[in-house]
């Protein structure tokens, strides 16, 4: 036994002093790592997501502004379509034609005096009124150009917390409908029909021969003939450019006075 214990002492004593320190250092490092992991594991390394503020800006300010502008465009498109249909029913006039009405339908002429409509100004003023009612904002300029309608108002300031986002409150919408193209063609066709049939005794035959296919006396349904002696005729005119407005075919109601001009 004595020899064996002597061997042990010998074994330990053969270990280099620096080696012993390194042995203990390994255990020390392991202990520190264990402590480190134990303390930090419930906390987890910073799990807070980056970019939260930026995403908030994009969603709460930018995307909301985009939706707001989309809503404005949608409103303008739908209201302009509605105005277009209303004007078509009134022969392009917002109120009564300067030439008066015939059986409630606006006349486009009174004997030799033409009263052709110019709907652009009516559209702009009516749309301004509706936009003001809807948004509470004034739109100083609204322009109609071919099938596009555009307008602008003051900038909108959007606020989220301490962040402020300012954007231009304006619209530019494709209507798939041109007031200018429609009414220019209609007034041209009406002028030709008046010129061709004003002096004709049998107005019915003249109108049936000279009118375009989309012009219908009295109604768009049926084929009514003009009674003899009647010189003021109301027409239902289908869109010369085959426009549909919001899914509805554009149809115009107007009256033409074929009475011969007094000499």
């Amino acid at each position, binding site marked *: 036994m004595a020899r064996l214990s002597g061997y042990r002492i010998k074994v330990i004593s053969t270990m280099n002093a620096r080696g012993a320190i390194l042995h203990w250092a390994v255990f020390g490092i392991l202990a520190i790592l264990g402590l480190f992991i134990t303390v930090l594991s419930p906390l987890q390394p910073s799990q807070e997501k980056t970019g939260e503020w930026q*995403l908030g800006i994009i969603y709460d300010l930018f995307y909301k502004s985009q939706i707001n502008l989309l809503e404005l465009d949608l409103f303008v498109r739908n209201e302009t379509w509605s105005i277009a249909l209303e004007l078509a029913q009134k022969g392009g006039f917002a109120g009564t034609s300067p030439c008066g009405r015939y059986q409630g339908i606006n006349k486009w002429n009174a004997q030799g005096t033409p009263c052709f409509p110019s709907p652009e100004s009516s559209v702009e003023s009516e749309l301004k009124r509706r936009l003001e009612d809807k948004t509470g904002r004034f739109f100083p300029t609204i322009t109609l150009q071919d099938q596009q309608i555009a307008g602008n108002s003051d900038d909108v300031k959007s606020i989220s917390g301490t962040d402020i986002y300012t954007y231009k409150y304006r619209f530019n*919408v494709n209507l798939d409908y041109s007031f200018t193209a429609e009414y220019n063609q209609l007034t041209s066709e009406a002028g030709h029909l008046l010129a061709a049939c004003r002096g004709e005794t049998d107005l019915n035959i003249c109108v049936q021969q000279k009118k375009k296919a989309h012009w219908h006396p009295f109604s768009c349904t049926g084929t009514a003939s003009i009674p003899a002696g009647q010189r003021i005729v109301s027409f239902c005119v289908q869109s010369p450019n085959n426009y549909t407005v919001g899914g509805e075919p554009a149809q115009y109601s107007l009256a033409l006075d074929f009475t011969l001009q007094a000499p």
Partner: protein
Amino acid sequence: MRDNHKNTMERKTGSAHPQYAYWQAFIPRGTRAMLDDMLDLLFMVMIAFFALFFVHAMLTGGTDERDKEISADIANMHRAGDYLINQRINLQEGAPLDISLIHENVMESIRQGTPTPFEAQIDQPGHGTPVGVQD
């Protein structure tokens, strides 16, 4: 005879333990100490390597999850942007739009990261309508 052999080994190796003795019998004492230190160092480096590897895995494991969430948020944000562009195209093409539904899709569904009912198909020529949105 056996005792003599032991004594001889002990004298040569400085250890009476046979297992200790046989392979170290031919290594001088000074060299043996250095080898001891070198092995200690080697083991310490290995242990430190694996320990640090573990710590690294623990730390980056957490951040990887976070990065995935951030990536998903960014993808959702882009998807919402594409969706809005598609709605504008739909508007220009005359399609009916439901603003409250658009608002809901953008502000709620997409932000919550739930599956969206549409996929942007803006790349398809002549077709700007997202899947799930009626013309």
